[in-house]
């Protein structure tokens, strides 16, 4: 009886972490391959000129606030996706402790730490 009259609570935290998981997955899927291809392979091999191959061009791009915002989204969001996937990969590999609250704090907290470090680096490197 008492359960029936209990007001339904929105699982806001659930909503938040699933949103971050999904967005991180989309951003990683759409944006990471081209960055790895151009900055990790074509640039170092000298096939195409790339913006981070020269100090002047890299700094002038990094000084742009829109670029900073883009890099924050590109780097921070996927880590919330990665945290979830790696935590459950551990569960699948027979580590039930990965389901525990401390493990959640470590994995999702890690994603938060990466976000904060990214914000700090973007704000202090070539400040706007």
């Amino acid at each position, binding site marked *: 009886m008492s359960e029936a009259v209990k007001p339904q609570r929105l699982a806001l935290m659930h909503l938040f972490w699933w949103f971050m998981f999904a967005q991180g*997955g*989309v951003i*990683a*899927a*759409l*944006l*990471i*391959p*081209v*960055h*790895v*291809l*151009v*900055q*990790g*392979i074509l*640039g*170092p*091999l000298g096939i*195409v*000129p*790339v*913006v*981070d*191959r*020269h*100090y*002047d*061009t*890299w*700094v*002038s*791009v*990094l000084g742009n606030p829109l670029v900073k915002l883009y*890099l924050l989204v*590109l*780097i921070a969001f*996927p*880590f919330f*996706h*990665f945290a979830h*996937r*790696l935590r*459950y*990969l551990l569960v*699948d*590999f*027979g580590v039930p402790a990965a389901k525990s609250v401390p493990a959640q704090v470590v994995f999702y907290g890690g994603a938060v730490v*990466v976000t904060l*470090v*990214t914000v700090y*680096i*973007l704000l*202090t*490197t*070539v400040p706007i």
Partner: protein
Amino acid sequence: MTTEATAEATTEAPAAPREYSWRMPANWWTRNRHYFLYTVREFTALPLALWLLWLLVEIRRAGDGPARYAPHSSTAFVVFSVVVLAFALYHSYTFLTLAGTILHFKVLDRPVPARLIVLSQFAAWAAASVVVAFVLIWFAHE
């Protein structure tokens, strides 16, 4: 077990049930192609995370000043990127294909076919890649 102990067990309150938890063998994911591909898909997170951390280092290094800045060019770095690219493409392929299963909506009262949704995801991927590649290469010229 002695008969005495058995009698005791039947008269007293039942002991806590023993747990026979089933444990997966450690190599379960190598036994079946689908399990293996699932594991690879979940594992893609690790190389992608490492590469993004590298990008963070590359950004930080711009603060070192012009004299000390030198871009990464070693063979090891290129090999690392090639490996990461393979995982990145697999993540993109699996994640964008998933949209056809998850997304359901109607246009003019007709359900949009899953193939069309997947196609739109891959089109978005292509468009984003072209734009990002253009910016990365175009702004390399002052």
